[in-house]
């Protein structure tokens, strides 16, 4: 008789388990559904506005004539400056922290500092760029000032991912190189880096895709939304895709929302193909190991 109550209790616990299984599953689906809705919304609004003219025209006050050319080229030049700078500074810092300064007080300081920097809101980097690059170094509201600001912003990401990549290189490879008479630097250049390169590349691509999508710091640094020419030097004013999209999205006319959606499609295609390439690199590398 007592067993009856116990069985009921067990059944209740099992029901509870099933109920929460469903709830947890639904919360997992929530993120996926939100992503799907977001993509559908953007595609439905923007697909009709996306054509060759859109890619090759400048911004305009008339929605049907507006294009993304200046922003597309601006983003491209921003990357041309930011990519090599972040790569060199980021990888150099990672090598220093992992290969030379391991467990010294200086490297622990730098390490804590980097993880704190990663938590600073991006708009604060904008204030840094505005004050140091635009005002103090009098670069003006230029492409160069924007690119340097972006470099500082994504540095923590590329440093941490390069460190992870360097950490995965087995110590035995380094020891073999030392045993053959190579010094530290030769070992790093000929053994450690080649073996860590796919991981470093993956991190670099991901950090660049972060830079391409960032808006707030560049608004503060002063990228302008109405640019009807292509930048011809690093000191020219410029615009980038997210800022152009922001500008269209904040226009009161409903048609500009569609133009913004078309811009978002271009931006997302660019980002998704970069991420896909990064994932491809990672998978290829993981299979090899």
């Amino acid at each position, binding site marked *: 008789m007592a067993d009856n109550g116990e069985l009921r209790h067990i059944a209740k616990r099992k029901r509870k*388990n099933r109920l*929460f299984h469903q709830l*947890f599953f639904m919360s997992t689906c929530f993120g996926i559904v939100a*992503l799907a809705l977001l993509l559908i919304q953007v595609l439905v609004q923007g697909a009709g506005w996306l054509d060759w003219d859109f890619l090759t025209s400048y911004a305009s006050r008339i929605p049907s004539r507006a294009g993304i050319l200046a922003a597309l080229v601006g983003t491209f030049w921003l990357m041309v400056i930011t990519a090599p700078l972040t790569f060199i500074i980021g990888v150099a*810092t990672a090598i220093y922290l992992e290969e030379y300064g391991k467990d010294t007080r200086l490297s622990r300081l730098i390490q804590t500092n980097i993880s704190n*920097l990663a938590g*600073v*809101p991006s708009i*604060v980097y904008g204030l840094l760029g505005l004050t140091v690059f635009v005002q103090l170094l009098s670069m003006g509201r230029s492409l160069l000032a924007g690119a340097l600001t972006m470099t500082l912003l994504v*540095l923590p990401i590329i440093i941490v991912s390069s460190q992870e990549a360097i950490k995965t290189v087995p110590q035995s490879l380094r020891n073999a190189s030392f045993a053959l008479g190579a010094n530290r630097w030769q070992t790093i250049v000929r053994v450690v880096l080649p073996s860590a390169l796919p991981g470093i590349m993956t991190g670099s691509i991901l950090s660049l895709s972060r830079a391409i999508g960032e808006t707030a710091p560049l608004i503060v640094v002063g990228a302008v939304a109405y640019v009807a020419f292509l930048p011809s030097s690093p000191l020219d004013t410029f615009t980038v895709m997210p800022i152009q999209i922001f500008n269209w999205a904040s226009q009161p006319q409903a048609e500009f929302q569609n133009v913004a959606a078309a811009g978002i499609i271009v931006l997302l295609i660019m980002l998704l193909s970069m991420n896909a390439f990064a994932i491809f690199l990672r998978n290829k590398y993981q299979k090899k190991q």
Partner: protein
Amino acid sequence: METELNTQTTDFTKKKKMISSDVLIPKILALFAFISIFTTVGIVAILIFESVNFFRAVPFLDFITGTKWTPLFEPAQFGVLPLIAGTLMVTVIASIVAIPIGLGSAIYLSEYAPARVRNIVKPILEILAGIPTIVYGFFALTFVTPLLKLFIPQVEIFNALSAGIVVGIMIIPIISSMSEDAMVAVPNSLRNGAYALGATRFEVAVKIVVPAALSGIVASFVLGLSRAIGETMIVTLAAGSLPNLEFNPLKSIQTLTAYIVSVSSGDTRYGSVEYLTIYAVGITLFVMTLLMNILAGYISRKFREEY
């Protein structure tokens, strides 16, 4: 004999070169590593320096306790509380969305999901984390706000609710992936012990795994919220630009970040008091997120359970 001598000298110069490269190169690399320190020093120095200039014109107490923020109108008033209230309102709404859903999906992925499902879902969450915030802002403005309007007709075009919900969606991947990492790190022996006593999957998850991973889970909440406080484009696009000390989520508000954007995209004169406000607001934002990040680090170190 002579050739031998020659090879010896080249050997020596080679060795000298090798030694010098091992002396010089760490120093060059250290210079690059210092750039990140300079960045921090630069941020802190600039925020403090320009804020001090601001507080010469506006008393600190008026700034921190004032309830009116009208720096661009006459009479200019510089009370930061409306901006802080706006930021906190968006953050609270975001956490109401993101904490249960993020934790729920972390429990599902770590305790319930078969490997096959996990391999599909995790990359999708990664994509969600990689979407630029400007796209989320567009989504809030053109999808979530009209949707809310269907259910609550008095919603304004720019409102804190829509922005908060979408900021919540944005931080779900952060909370979910960090919490999941903490749960996966809980050793299986603990789970098996509970199963052997007849516990259901739910009981194992809630009574064993979550308590054991609590420090990591709470740290993920705090980091997610810190991200919500610093989020800029979603609130700029969807929450509007009316800094009122109000707690009605259906109305337009302004956050700390959105204010900085609105001043920077206008044409305020360099060096004027209005211009200096962005640094005072910036240092407020910086201190808030810094405290949150330190708290997150403290929680995950202090309360970590070692197995």
